[in-house]
């Protein structure tokens, strides 16, 4: 049993008529509940919920403050390598683009780590393009061994691995896994992932679960919003998160709502996810999964981020570069364009001004010798 079986059932739902038939009364009922069902989630994502965004926001904020207080966990991504064997139509690292690829040496990893740690951050997310040949597990592991001298939590966002491989990285000190399905809608998934192992939908879909089984402390999933109907994608993402949360209650399941961003190529997505839509998605996530982390990336512009912070967000990136080595040398090809380029100290100041407390450290790697 994996989420795939549920997905097969959920995909058969008559989405069109559900969206059309949902009423204001349905939204009010969902809003009054403590624990929401699948149908409530559909209702909160429906057009009928549009006029209720404020009421949803009030409740989302109450829940977030009760569970997380005023804390906002900060982290930053570090790009280790931009080699990739896939062709995804929406990404600059795609193998069809011809630019000088690079991969940090351990010495460069150390330099990047020192530069990031100097900003006060203690949580890091390491990323690579997807290429087992160029950035194999052994390489990631070697990098983690360097990084754990500088950070109290290291998460990975790399190609899907097998459960024993995840276990190996866990033992090396990785405690979090981020893996986006990108697109839940299967036909669209096949269209957008033209070439490479990433075409294997099932392998990707089941990877977060393998991470839970391996014992990661946190697993973060998401759909790249804009690639298919956002209501349906958000619904399936949240259902995937609840599936994992129910089955692996000791793992902290978080969600990210990334929107499509400009990149090297000229693909533009099918469905436009407006700011209002993004807000509705975040609020529905929070009401459906009151205790889950919700991560906000620098894909969103600063002004919008500052507002979204009060709607259920619990983690955000700061001081971001999406290039390999971007924290020290720069000059690489960014994976996509970021919108909020504020430094860690600027984000810190902004959070305080908004009545929120930046949290730089929210975990300690246990049982690993810290140098």
């Amino acid at each position: 049993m994996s989420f795939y079986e549920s997905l097969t059932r959920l995909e058969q739902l008559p989405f069109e008529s559900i969206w059309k038939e949902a009423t204001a009364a349905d939204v009010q009922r969902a809003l009054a509940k403590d624990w929401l069902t699948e149908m409530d989630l559909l209702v909160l994502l429906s057009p009928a919920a549009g006029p209720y965004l404020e009421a949803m926001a009030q409740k989302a904020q109450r829940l977030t403050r009760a569970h997380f207080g005023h804390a906002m966990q900060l982290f930053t991504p570090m790009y280790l390598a931009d080699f990739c064997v896939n062709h995804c139509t929406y990404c600059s690292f795609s193998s069809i683009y011809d630019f000088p690829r690079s991969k940090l040496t351990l010495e460069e990893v150390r330099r990047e780590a020192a530069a990031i740690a100097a900003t006060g951050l203690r949580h890091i997310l390491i990323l690579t393009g997807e290429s087992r040949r160029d950035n194999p597990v052994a390489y990631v592991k070697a990098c983690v061994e360097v990084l754990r001298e500088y950070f109290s939590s290291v998460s990975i966002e790399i190609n899907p691995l097998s459960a024993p491989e995840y276990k190996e990285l866990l033992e090396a000190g990785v405690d979090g896994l981020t893996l986006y399905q990108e697109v839940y809608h299967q036909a669209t998934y096949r269209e957008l992932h033209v070439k490479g192992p990433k075409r294997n939908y099932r392998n990707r879909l089941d990877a977060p679960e393998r991470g839970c089984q391996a014992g990661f402390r946190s697993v973060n999933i998401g759909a790249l919003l804009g690639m298919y109907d956002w209501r349906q994608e958000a619904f399936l993402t949240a259902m995937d998160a609840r599936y994992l949360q129910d089955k692996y209650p000791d793992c902290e399941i978080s969600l990210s709502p990334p929107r499509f961003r400009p990149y090297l190529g000229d693909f533009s997505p099918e469905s436009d996810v407006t700011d209002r839509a993004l807000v509705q998605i975040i609020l529905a996530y929070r009401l459906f999964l009151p205790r889950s982390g919700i991560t906000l990336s620098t894909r969103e512009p600063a002004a919008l981020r500052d507002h979204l912070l009060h709607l259920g967000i619990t983690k955000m990136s700061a001081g971001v570069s999406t290039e390999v080595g971007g924290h020290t040398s720069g000059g690489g090809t960014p994976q996509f364009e970021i919108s909020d380029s504020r430094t860690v100290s600027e984000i810190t100041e902004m959070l305080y001004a908004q009545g929120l407390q930046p949290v730089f450290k929210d975990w300690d790697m246990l049982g690993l010798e810290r140098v």
Partner: protein
Amino acid sequence: MQDPLVIGNTSLSSRLFIGTGKYSRNTLIPEVVARSGSQVITVALRRVDPGADEENIVSHIPDHMTLLPNTSGARTAEEAVRIARLARAGGLGNWVKIEVINDQKYLLPDNLETIKATEILAAEGFVVLPYMSPDLSAALRLRDAGAAAVMPLGSPIGSNRGLRTKELLRILIEEVKLPIIVDAGIGRPSEAAEAMEMGAAAVLLNTAIATARDPLGMAEAFREAVSAGRKAYLAGLGPVEEAAVASSPLTGFLGN
């Protein structure tokens, strides 16, 4: 009137324990401490970063406070034990609040793992205060394992739902010969007062103060509520009768 709460070798005059986790800024902590009158403050070791100056939570805690490091984030007894040892090695004292949670949905504690961790740490000389679901046999086992107090939940963490477990708390207060510190769920001063009236030894709370519009005002309100509840308990509440007691009894004519 002297009415100290004694835990381990420490005598406390305040029965309000507070948290550090949810404030909008750590610089509020000294003022909350002052206004609440609290002497015990819990801090999650996972948040402690001795390397950071301004952002190091511990540097904001006044020296006179007894630190109660907690094992938040632990999913097993083994992890809780490791966190407790790290806290002691890191100079945070030898008190520890055991928090073992492997349910991210409701954040309910795992009593079995908590008992295991308590046994190990009490034997190592820690003053152990376990956070638990209010279950009598688990509380007795915690007592036998060497806990210095037990901390049953009033309702789930952060829920502000008050004393939903009241009947079970009452049983613990009556049966477990250890201080019972009601932890989690208290959202209002009246609920803190109620716990104290029932005979709880103390209450621990965080969300209710940290997320109030005016945390300092709320800290003071809780100080007074806890103290009022304690006084009422000591004074002995009048018996509560289900029905009105007639002032001229119906069977009075029978004489003796």
